[in-house]
């Protein structure tokens, strides 16, 4: 094996770093095809072809927790991290699972994680999984409520209802960037759903 082959030998345990599945190693392996006489790609896949529901749920929980770790690094405090993990365990709980329930979509969860890192709520949302697998996050403070539907590539649908200074507000929309979303909801910080 060439020197280039040797130095990219070890495959990290987590194959998806921020921004999709192109890891440096994979990228380098890609460009080293002409150097190496035999090249290969390492993949991880379930042990059994027919995995049980419990195992599939574990895989899905692990995927979401890995994304939480990789995106959150040391930005998430331990309390928020635990709350997020509790919610992940709850939405993918084998005891509550029904045959028609959907697994959580990873790309949707990445959008949620990016929102959490940038909006910096002090508490995790209540989570649900929609029929197509996208995540629905809800923050509440009394009757004030902020609901966020997360899709791939930072797309969101959002809805808020709150009473501020005696005025009832109901507002919602579709956002194609997280900056735009955060700008739209920032006037409603006083609604308290993020418990700053």
């Amino acid at each position, binding site marked *: 094996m060439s020197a280039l082959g040797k*130095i990219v030998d070890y495959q990290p345990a987590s194959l998806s770093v921020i921004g999709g599945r192109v890891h440096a190693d994979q990228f380098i392996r890609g460009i080293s095809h002409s150097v190496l006489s035999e*090249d*290969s790609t390492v993949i991880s896949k379930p*042990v059994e072809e027919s995995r049980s529901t419990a195992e599939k749920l574990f895989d899905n929980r*692990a995927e979401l927790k890995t994304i939480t770790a990789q995106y959150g*690094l040391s930005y998430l405090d331990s309390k928020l991290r635990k709350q997020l993990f509790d919610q992940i365990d709850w939405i993918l709980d084998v005891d509550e699972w029904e045959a028609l329930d959907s697994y959580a979509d990873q790309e949707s969860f990445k959008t949620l994680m990016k929102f959490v890192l940038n909006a910096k709520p002090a508490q995790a949302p209540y989570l649900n999984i929609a029929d197509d697998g996208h995540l629905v996050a809800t923050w509440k403070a009394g009757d004030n409520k902020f609901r966020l539907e997360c899709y791939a590539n930072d797309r969101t649908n959002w809805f808020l209802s709150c009473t501020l200074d005696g005025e009832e507000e109901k507002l919602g929309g579709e956002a194609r960037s997280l900056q735009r979303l955060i700008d739209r909801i920032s006037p409603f910080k006083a609604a308290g759903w993020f418990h700053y």
Partner: protein
Amino acid sequence: MAKSQKKHKSYKKPPIVEAVIEIRFEDMLASTQLDKLISKQKTKFNVQKIEEVELKISGGQPEAGAQAETKTRLVGYKLTSNLNASDIIQVKANALSISRLPPYEGWENLLKDLKHYYNWYTNKKFKSLSRIGVRYINRIDIPSDGKIKVEDYFKIFPHVPQTKFPDMNHFLVQTAAAIDDEKLLTINMHRVPSPLLKHASIIFDLDVAQQANLPKNDDQLYQLLDEIREKKDFFFETLLTPKCKKLFNS
């Protein structure tokens, strides 16, 4: 030999995406031994196969076109902790690695875990080694409205002409260097989309490994791992600027 008493710098917000220790052995375990090992861990870990997919493209006569053939082969297992998915063990017929994802809990904890699973893998009987490596993959998130001067944060960077050169949207740096008679330092560095708004993120990946003159017993192995860690820390500290390191304490 006396243990290293050197104080290590720690940061409030370490940028570590994944910390890894890997040990490779000269002899291969039989697949039955590997399966037996794995079966003992099924309550504590979720187990996945690691497979290598090999793609061979053979070009015949131009008019016949190229033919592609794929082969899949089991090379080991990936064990992910049931508790928090932050601890990952990769077990192969001739290798053991442990990875820690955030939150990083320090070298001592990583080494403690390594010792535990090393004893499990070797059944407490020393096995001849073929390579030892320590790899830390960091993601440096730099506040930015678009442009960043990489040289303000790193002492290793792609050098370009100062005038009339377009901004680099992406770059990839890879270097390999012998750092003493036996150890090899590999650096991988490249930009990735940042999860933080108004930030640019750069992966800074350091790998220090040794393939020759390897330990002959467990004590020597653990001592060498500490030495490799010292080297890794030295290059981390040396290759980042004070402005960069400030990001980890802010």
